[in-house]
């Protein structure tokens, strides 16, 4: 059998005295569309931070394609194929839409090449330009090409952030509440777009989502988190009938 794309083993993250994640273990197979739910403060974003390297775990291991990446710095993880978006947008707001995407594509020429205007630089920039355009076009964002990222409408900025993450040519895409702040209609169309992207780029998607209807309707497998622990895992039906999940959510207004 093939090794899972991502494997998290006994992950524990503490902030001072507060345990944000306790003994989390799960794995993600290639091509999966996994959703993660849980009340506020359950540790969902912390889990993403730990996987992407923004936070170092106190205990446990993270394996990506069978490789132990627990102590890798964030940029190395990104280059290996873990891309993410943020709950609150973190675009490079004063840079153009094109630059936001180009940036993530990496660099193919030596750092001094532009100063000497070497052919490798000119070729490299042409390639960046072409692939950025192609990517933005697939998101219908190419018309904003020269505009600063913060001049875009909110919904488009969210999609630009996803496009930027895809510019890394990732294998695993971590999406932190991509539909937050969108209308129901926009949210549905975004999720459907994500499904298409997953097929097109053979992606594995791991999604934090608050909208229960979306999670239940679109994620074949779901993990439920509460107070930093996994309280349920399975298909939408299994999650919906899991007493621990129901209890965790009964305390909340949802």
């Amino acid at each position, binding site marked *: 059998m093939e090794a899972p794309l991502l494997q998290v083993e006994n992950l524990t993250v503490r902030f*001072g005295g507060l345990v944000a994640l306790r003994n989390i273990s799960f794995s993600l197979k290639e091509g999966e569309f996994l959703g993660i739910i849980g009340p506020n403060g359950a540790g969902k974003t912390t889990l993403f931070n730990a996987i992407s390297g923004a*936070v170092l775990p106190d205990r446990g291991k993270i394996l990506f394609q069978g490789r132990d990446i627990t102590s890798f710095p964030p940029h190395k993880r990104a280059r290996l194929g873990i891309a993410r978006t*943020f*709950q609150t947008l973190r675009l490079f707001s004063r840079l153009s839409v094109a630059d936001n995407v180009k940036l993530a594509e990496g660099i193919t020429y030596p750092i001094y090449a532009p100063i000497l205007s070497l052919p490798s630089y000119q070729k490299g920039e042409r390639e960046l330009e072409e692939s950025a355009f192609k990517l933005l076009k697939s998101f219908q964002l190419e018309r904003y090409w020269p505009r600063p990222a913060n001049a875009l409408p909110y919904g488009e900025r969210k999609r630009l952030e996803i496009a930027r993450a895809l510019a890394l040519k990732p294998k695993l895409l971590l999406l932190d509440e991509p539909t937050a702040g969108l209308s129901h209609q926009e949210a549905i169309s975004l999720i459907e777009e994500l499904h298409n992207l997953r097929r097109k780029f053979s992606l594995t998607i791991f999604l934090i989502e608050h909208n229960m209807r979306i999670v239940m309707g679109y994620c074949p497998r779901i993990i439920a988190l509460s107070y930093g622990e996994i309280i349920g895992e399975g298909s939408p039906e299994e999650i919906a009938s899991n007493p621990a999940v129901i209890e965790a959510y009964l305390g909340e207004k949802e």
Partner: protein
Amino acid sequence: MNLFLQQLINGLAWGGIYALIAIGYTMVYGVMQLINFAHGDVFMVGAFVGLVIAQLLPDKTSPLSVFLVFLSAMFFSTLLGILIERLGYRSLWRKNAPRLSLLIVAVAISLLLENSGLLLFGAAPRSFPEIIPSKSYFVGSIIFTNLQLIIILSCLLLMGILHLIVMHTKMGRAMRAVAEDSEMSALLGVPRERVLSFTFALGSALAGIAGVMVALYAPQINPLMGLLPGLKAFIAAVLGGIGSIPGAMVGGFVLGEAETLVSAYLSSSYRDLLAFLVLILVLLLRPQGLLGKGVVEKL
């Protein structure tokens, strides 16, 4: 051994003074993550206010005069601290401007104060009147002066008072809340701007007192006197763990002692270099300082 003890005692007074200034840096850093470069100059202003008042008073050495000198230095430096916060930082802080801008403002205010001082008083050092006549005491072969004693004791006293204010008053609690989590404290109704003013006032009051102490101890003052002690006090704050008040006290004493020992046993020309070396070592090896907590960036 005796020489060593003697140096330790000499270092204590400087340590206390650094600690008093360092507290101001650390408190401001705690509530607004800003290195208030102008803080060292508030200390200088304190010394000059002390000088002016001391020269006005007829009977310089009476306890009342001493009290008045300290009180006025404290009052004017407090006022200055509040003004700096109001006119310099607040609008940028409200706009959530980049930290770079706040730092540049800090540097600019520092230059303004120094050069206004130079314009008013000239660059030549002025000797400070001896408002506390010097007395020396011997314990075995170790000498210490009444001034050293007064400085160390009043530093400890002031730190005690500060501790009470920070831990046991409403404003102190608010300060700690803002330092802990600024946004959250605002949501919970902590009047953040008043806390900022209060923090600047408190830090500046201590700096003003430290200014007079240095003036008495040195006993010469000049408009650029805030520059180096200011930087060193900042380094002391970093050494102790920026944002931590006990850290600033510990850092101040450690740096004061280290400097005195270096100039006694190596050479006094290394004295000023030491602080910067300490700084770079701390930043590289233990950026959270001796007593500081690790910093977690919010996502």
